[in-house]
């Protein structure tokens, strides 16, 4: 197997206050963990207030990826950023529930647009509270 393919990074795009990540590959464990720390570093560097993670092309989320996503949401929240997972396929959602995996602290949205609205609303509410 080609190692260059294995070591490929998942790009993170910054738009306004948000980071956008689109997972386009079936992630092996190390790539998933690398993405987790990459996103946290990017939150620190840019001061982003929200992260949108598009998993619409992911054909499965097992307990490892699920734990990575919820772990990332808790870490991001400590860094004052919210994580929204968008575009989960129905079959993936069904399987996750049957698997019994809970993802505390993870917000989800049907698509990127709704996820973005969710984050903007959250940001507005925070400003209001201040």
């Amino acid at each position, binding site marked *: *197997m080609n190692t260059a393919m*294995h070591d490929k990074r998942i790009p993170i795009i910054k738009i306004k206050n948000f980071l956008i990540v689109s997972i386009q590959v*079936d*992630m*092996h*464990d*190390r790539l998933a963990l690398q993405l987790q720390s990459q996103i946290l570093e990017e939150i620190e560097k840019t001061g982003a207030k929200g992260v949108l993670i598009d998993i619409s092309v992911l*054909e*499965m*989320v*097992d*307990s*490892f990826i699920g*734990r990575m996503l919820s772990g990332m949401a808790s870490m991001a929240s400590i860094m004052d950023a919210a994580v929204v997972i968008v575009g989960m*396929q*129905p*079959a*993936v959602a*069904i*399987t996750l529930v*049957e*698997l*019994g*995996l809970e993802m505390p602290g993870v917000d989800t949205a049907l698509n990127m647009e709704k996820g973005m609205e969710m984050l903007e609303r959250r940001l507005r509410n925070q400003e209001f509270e201040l």
Partner: protein
Amino acid sequence: MLGLTSDKGWDELGKHFLETEYDIVRVRQVVRNHAKELNMGIVDQTRITTAVSELFRNMYNYAGGGDVLVETGIVDGHQSLIVTCIDHGPGIADIDQAMSDGYTSGMGMGYGLPGAKRLVDRFEIQSKVNEGTVVRVIKWK
């Protein structure tokens, strides 16, 4: 392999050696492709792929890898996909405990076995301490 469902008349679809974390991804994709070829629905494809992903990760984490046998045949009157994971790792001393929800081993992760069991139609496990573990999952079409 005492106690496992008889494999009489099953067709072997492939045998795969799993030893790196890349193999977890590669072999679960192979299993998904077989599920597709059997015309399983998208939810069942996802269920069996996710179940084997949990089993493969166990083999990788606890036994350093193992062999995966993919077969198809009739089980309980249904055309089925049968995936058998064989490792020569430390084995599981208390299978009932490993099969209970919320059980976590020393590595800070659950075995994922009860979850995997819920995703398939048949789940069979045999283990002997210091010899290894065989887990077979069967998904009806």
